[in-house]
């Protein structure tokens, strides 16, 4: 094992009794658990892949089951209905997924903290209703002002929930359940009091940035430029960091893995751009990447940076694993919790805008209590743990796409709403079962 740490340490501390070392090798539990982290010990591509395979065998499956599930679902639907993988339907599916992804992202913040947020569905609806009402001719606000007011309203609701949970020590399940019930009422109240609502529907003017979020497309050249810039930036940052860490003698994945990640990201991005730039119109030509897709990816990237590169994110994981350890480390646990619920609600607000943009309106019949369950499902299917401390932004992305694939595919082959909900439930159960089985197998082989 060409590990810089062990090398230098053995040189400096040779006389120290190395008793624990023997232990690590004889102790079955320790050996099994260490396999969970083998990737960090690998220095070559081959070693890395072997470590990865071993890790999956040990129950740390990561994103693999969900990717396998996604492929399975795509194959099933494609066999049933050849239109499923048409460029038009893929774009449609991804736009549908955008809403679930954003709601699931919000939910991920709560899940990391070992809490739950049942309010994200209705928060999205309330935020979108406020924005659309302000955009309607009766108020005629500029789009940016309407968006800011809508999102701030969402964030404030989230902050109030966070304060109730942290200051009054109420369980998040109860507080956000109360929100779910209460905001359903608030939504009806808003439709009653805004002048813009006609027959329980507030329409979105068919021009302007909010409408174009989903209905507007980037030009082909613009989408290629954005892709090249984004992948190039990613390559420079990740390869640069990798080489800097190597130069300082710190642990870093093999360079080939970093390059491979960049290549995969580039290929996936190129495939997306190509699919979106195929003409998908029936009567009039229609092509291009809808603006909502890069925006959702941007939100995923930004929240991922927040979770992995800032103190706030680090503290969220710490609190999710052990609130007591976090408190003793001097972390202001209450404040971080409140921030998490605020971010959750804010992200849900973004989801509400996407929802309204896709439908071109929002109605009093908005079903926030169902959507929140899709949000939880998206985060959990993606791999966030209900027991806290685990979960990544990318999990919500994968889970959201998978749920959208199920919803979209079932609608395409003409299954009723009843069938759709039952199928979604089965997918959720299957995802959690696979996860749990893999994990249990992992723990039984390690404990013995």
């Amino acid at each position, binding site marked *: *094992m060409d*590990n810089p*740490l*062990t090398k*230098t*340490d*053995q040189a*400096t*501390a040779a006389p*120290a*009794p*190395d*008793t*624990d*070392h*023997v*232990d*690590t090798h004889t*102790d079955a539990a*320790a050996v099994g*658990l*260490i396999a*969970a*982290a083998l990737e*960090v*010990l690998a220095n070559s591509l081959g070693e890395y892949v072997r470590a990865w395979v071993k890790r999956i065998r040990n129950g740390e499956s990561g994103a693999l089951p969900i990717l396998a599930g996604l492929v399975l679902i795509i194959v099933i639907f494609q066999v049933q209905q050849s239109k499923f993988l048409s460029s038009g339907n893929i774009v449609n599916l991804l736009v549908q997924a955008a809403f679930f992804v954003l709601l699931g992202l919000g939910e991920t913040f709560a899940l990391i903290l070992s809490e739950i947020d049942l309010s994200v569905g209705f928060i999205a609806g309330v935020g979108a209703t406020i924005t659309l009402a302000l955009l309607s001719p009766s108020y005629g606000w500029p789009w940016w002002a309407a968006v800011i007011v809508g999102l701030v309203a969402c964030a404030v609701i989230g902050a109030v929930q966070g304060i109730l949970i942290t200051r009054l020590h109420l369980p998040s399940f109860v507080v956000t359940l109360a929100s779910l019930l209460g905001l359903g009422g608030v939504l009806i109240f808003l439709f009653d009091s805004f002048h813009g609502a006609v027959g329980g529907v507030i329409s979105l003017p068919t021009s302007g940035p909010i409408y174009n979020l989903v209905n507007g497309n980037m030009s082909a050249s613009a989408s290629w430029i954005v892709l090249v810039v984004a992948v190039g930036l990613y390559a420079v940052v990740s390869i640069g960091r990798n080489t*800097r*860490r190597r130069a*300082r*003698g*710190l*642990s870093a994945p093999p360079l080939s893995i970093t390059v491979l990640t960049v290549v995969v990201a580039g290929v996936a991005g190129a495939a997306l751009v190509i699919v979106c730039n195929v003409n998908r119109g029936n009567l009039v030509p229609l092509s291009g990447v809808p603006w909502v897709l890069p925006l959702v990816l941007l939100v995923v990237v930004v929240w991922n*940076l927040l979770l992995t*590169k*800032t*103190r706030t994110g*680090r503290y969220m*994981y*710490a609190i*999710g*694993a*052990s609130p*007591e*350890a*976090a408190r*003793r*480390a*001097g*972390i202001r646990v209450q404040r971080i919790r409140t921030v998490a619920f605020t971010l959750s609600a804010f992200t849900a607000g973004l989801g509400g805008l996407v929802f309204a943009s896709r439908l071109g309106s929002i109605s009093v019949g908005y079903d926030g209590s169902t959507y929140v369950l899709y949000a939880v499902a998206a985060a959990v299917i993606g791999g966030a743990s209900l027991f806290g*401390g*685990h979960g990544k932004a990318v999990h919500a992305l994968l889970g959201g796409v998978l749920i959208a694939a199920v919803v979209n595919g079932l609608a395409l082959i003409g299954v009723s709403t009843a069938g759709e909900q039952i199928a979604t439930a089965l997918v959720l159960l299957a995802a959690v079962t696979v996860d749990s089985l893999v994990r249990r197998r992992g723990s039984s082989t390690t404990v013995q």
Partner: protein
Amino acid sequence: MSDNDSEVERVPLIELRGVKKRFGAVQAVNGVDLDIHTGKVTALAGDNGAGKSSLIKTLSGLWEPDEGQILWEGKPVHLRSPKEAEALGITTIYQDLALCDNLDIVQNMFLGHEVVRHFTLDEGTMEARAKETLSELAVTTVRSIRQPVASLSGGQRQSVAVAKAVMSNAKLVIMDEPTAALGVSQTATVLALIKRLASRGVTVLVISHNLNDIFEVADRIAVLRLGRVVAAGPISTFNPEVIVDYMTTGRSERVSANPSIATAGVQN
């Protein structure tokens, strides 16, 4: 005994004078006088309910004593919160270690004290400094400091907790039963770690009722019984039977035969 004489001239790192703490009808700490000397490993022994935990909670700032005085480097101080104790340089490692299983070794060592550059976490600097501290403490058994703490053995976890304390420039490290849950070889590792800590000039207060460990690692010992220090002094003036006598009855017939030990018991 010459070792003992040189200690007396120096001001102890921390001195307790008549410290009392009462919970309702229970007098948990009943007038403790105790000196803890710089750079020494002091063992705090006592039966269950003798007041060991109450005493260390007082020292780590979790609650203020009802009566009595605490002197830090000769000056009176009030430890009103864990933050104030930490600011002085007192770090307490509880039995549960307070580590986050999902975070790796570096992340745990810097939890709450992360290095930030350009508004983002400076992982490189943190990893380098963590590596340095671990190698100074001769913690060589972890394979990668980027592995999650969940994958470490009990002794390794204890090492991470100690390294975390060293990292915060602690002057006094209080360890609550550090070897209670460990096997034989891991206990040896942790005891070796405690000695290295002391050799770096860090003062250590170890709570333990394992007499083997105490004789292995401690320079001095204080025996608590019913909230009082019934005996204290250099470990060389005690033997296990005497300590058991003090822990169970508060006095020892064996001691009265030897005047030098008797004074050791009274002096503090």
